[in-house]
C-alpha cells in the first residue's frame, strides 16, 4: 500500500523501508518521520507543499491512505470536541437535525477551504454561547470509552470468579484424595479380602468420582459464563461482586422502535419424541420385463461353461474406457434388455375389437382405418 506513495521530500527512503510511517498534519500533507525530525531540527517548520506554518505537535500518524480523509477526520474530531450537544438537549427532532446540519456544514467548509474566515467566526460564536456546557462535557468521558470500561470491568469480574472457582475445586480435590487414601488404608487394615483386589476397587471408585467431579465443574463454569454474558447486556443487579459500585454503564439493547438486538443466543430445546416413524427397510428394485429374462451382468461378465459368450459379439471396451468404469458387458446387457423387454406386450384395445384378420384384407388397402381405436400405453 505504501509503495505507491512516497514521502514528498526524501522520496527514495519510502521504498527502502516499508515500515516507515507517514505523519500527517493539519494542512493534510504527509511527511515521513525522518523528514519531520529534519524539519523541526531547524526550529520552526513549514509544510514543504503549502508553506503553512506548523507545530511539531500538529503531526499525527497517518491512519488513512487518502490525505483528504485524514484531514477531514482531524477537523471533525476538533470540531466535535466543542459541539457536543446530544439529542436530549433539544426540545424536538427538527431542532436537533438543524443543529447537526449546521455542524456538518462547518466541517465541510473547513475541509474544502470554503469561507474559512466565516466558518471560524461561527465556531467562535457558538463557543461563546455554550461555554459552560462545553466545560461540563469536557469533564465527562465520551460514550465509547465508557462502554469499553464497562466491558473491561466485566471481564475482570469473570476472571476473578474463575480463579476463585479453580481454587475451591483444587481444595476440594485435595480433601477428597486424602479421604480416599485414608479409606484405603482402613480397608486394608480391617477387611479380610485380598490386598490387590481392594486396591483395584478403590482405584475404580476413584476414577468414577473424578469423572463425575469434572462434569460437575464444567457445567458450573458454563452456567456462570452464561450468567456473566447475559449480565453484560441487560440491567444487572450488582449482586455478582461489586456491591456499592455505581450503576454501571448500560448498553442499549433495543432500538427506539422496540426491536431488540444483541444478547446471547438462546436456542429452543430440541423437540423430543417426534413419534414413532417406521424404520426404513431396503427393498431391492424389481425390473418387470414383459418377456424372457435377459442375462444378468454377472452372467455376461464372467460366463460359466453353461452360459454362452455373449461378449464376443460386442465391441470390446478399450483400456481407457475400462479405467473410466465402463465395461462392454454393460452395453451388451442394455442391448439384450431392450431386445427382450415388452416383447410379449399386447396393445390395449378400447372396445372389444379384434385386430383385423388376414383374410379380410385386400391388397393395397390402407391399414389405418381399421385400427383407429387402438390405444397405446407405451412410447
Amino acid at each position, binding site marked *: 500500500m505504501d509503495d505507491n506513495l512516497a514521502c514528498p521530500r526524501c522520496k527514495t527512503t519510502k521504498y527502502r523501508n516499508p515500515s516507515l510511517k507517514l505523519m500527517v498534519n493539519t494542512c493534510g500533507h504527509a511527511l515521513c518521520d525522518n523528514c519531520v525530525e529534519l524539519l523541526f531540527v531547524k526550529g520552526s517548520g513549514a509544510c514543504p507543499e503549502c508553506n503553512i506554518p506548523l507545530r511539531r505537535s500538529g503531526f499525527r500518524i497517518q491512519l488513512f491512505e487518502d490525505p483528504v480523509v485524514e484531514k477531514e477526520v482531524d477537523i471533525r474530531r476538533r470540531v466535535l470536541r466543542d459541539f457536543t450537544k446530544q439529542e436530549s438537549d433539544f426540545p424536538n427532532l427538527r431542532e436537533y437535525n438543524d443543529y447537526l446540519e449546521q455542524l456538518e456544514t462547518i466541517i465541510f467548509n473547513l475541509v474544502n477551504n470554503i469561507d474559512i474566515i466565516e466558518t471560524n467566526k461561527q465556531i467562535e460564536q457558538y463557543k461563546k454561547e455554550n461555554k459552560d456546557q462545553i466545560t461540563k462535557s469536557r469533564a465527562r468521558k465520551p460514550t465509547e470509552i465508557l462502554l469499553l470500561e464497562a466491558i473491561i470491568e466485566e471481564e475482570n469480574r469473570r476472571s476473578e470468579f474463575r480463579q476463585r472457582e479453580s481454587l475451591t475445586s483444587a481444595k476440594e480435590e485435595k480433601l477428597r484424595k486424602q479421604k480416599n487414601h485414608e479409606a484405603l488404608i482402613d480397608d486394608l487394615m480391617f477387611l479380610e479380602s485380598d490386598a490387590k483386589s481392594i486396591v483395584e476397587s478403590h482405584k475404580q471408585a476413584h476414577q468414577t468420582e473424578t469423572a463425575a467431579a469434572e462434569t460437575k465443574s464444567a457445567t458450573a463454569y458454563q452456567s456462570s459464563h452464561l450468567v456473566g454474558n447475559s449480565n453484560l447486556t441487560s440491567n444487572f443487579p450488582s449482586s455478582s461482586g461489586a456491591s456499592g459500585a455505581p450503576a454501571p454503564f448500560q448498553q442499549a439493547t433495543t432500538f427506539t422502535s422496540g426491536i431488540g438486538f444483541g444478547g446471547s443466543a438462546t436456542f429452543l430445546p430440541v423437540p423430543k419424541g417426534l413419534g414413532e416413524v417406521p424404520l426404513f427397510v431396503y427393498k431391492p428394485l424389481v425390473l418387470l420385463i414383459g418377456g424372457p429374462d435377459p442375462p444378468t451382468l454377472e452372467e455376461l461378465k464372467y460366463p460359466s461353461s453353461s452360459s454362452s459368450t455373449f461378449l464376443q459379439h460386442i465391441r470390446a471396451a478399450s483400456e481407457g474406457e475400462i479405467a473410466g468404469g465402463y465395461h462392454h458387458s454393460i452395453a451388451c446387457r442394455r442391448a439384450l434388455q431392450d431386445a427382450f423387454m*415388452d416383447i410379449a*406386450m399386447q396393445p390395449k384395445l378400447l372396445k372389444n375389437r379384434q385386430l383385423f384378420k388376414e383374410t379380410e384384407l385386400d391388397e393395397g388397402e390402407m391399414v389405418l382405418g381399421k385400427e383407429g381405436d387402438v390405444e397405446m400405453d407405451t*412410447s
Partner: protein
Amino acid sequence: MKFQPPMSKAVIGTAFSYFKRFFLYNSVMDYHPKEILVTCVYLACKIEEFNVTIAQFVANVRGDRVKAQEIILNNELLLMSAVKFHLTVHNPYRPVEGFLIDLKTRHPILEAENLRPYIDEFLDKVLMTDVPLMYAPAQIALASVLEAARKCREHLDVYVTSILITDEEMLQSVVDAIRTIRLMVRVKNYEPPSRDTVKALEKKLEKCRNQENNPDSSIYKTRMMEELLEEDERTQQDYSTTLAEQRMHFARLIMESKH
C-alpha cells in the same frame, strides 16, 4: 440431407415418431406439414445428441433460409407441447442389435450378419406405417429379424419357440404381435407419390388451411400486431388503474391524519 458425420438412424426414427404423434392431435390444415417436418428433424437432432446448430441445419434448406430458421424456432415449443413433452423415443435399432447378439450366441448356425441389409430395409418400411405407434420396439425388432430371415430363406422358428421364449403364454402373445406387424408392413403401399400429385395437394392445402397459423398470411400478421398493441394497451390500463388506486389511498391517509 447430407451431414458430416452422417446422421444416425435413431434421429430419423425419433423425428418420424414426433411427426406422427403431432398429427395425431393436430390437423394438417392447422399447421403446414412441411414446417412441422423440419422442426421435427431439428428437435430429434437435439434429443438424440446429434448436435447441429440452427445455422448448419438451415444451410441444407433450399429457399429462404432466414424464414426457415424463424419457422423452426417458433414451432419448436409448439411441437414439444403437442408431443406432451415425452421427448425420449425408444427406437427399434438397439433391440435389433440385441437380437443379433443373441442369435450369434445361442443360435450360431445362422449367419446373423447376412440379415442386416434386410433388417434395415424392413425398418425403413416400418417407419412409414403406424406400427411404431402401436407396438413395443422389441416386437418391431423381432419382426424385422424374422422377416429378414424369411427373405434369406432361413428358419428361425426353432430359435423363437425353444431358445428365446420358453413360456407358453408369452409365446402366443409374441407370435400374435409379430404376425400383425409383418402384415401391416407388407400391406402398405410404399411408392412415394408423384410430383404432380404433391403439387396438387399443396395447392389444395393452401386454399383450405387455417390462415391464422400461416406466417405468410395477412391475418397472422395483423393478429401479431394486435397482440403487440394489446400488450401496450394493457400495460397502459394497468398503469392508470394503479395510479388511481394510489391517489385514493393517499387521499384516505390525509383524511385520517386530519382527524
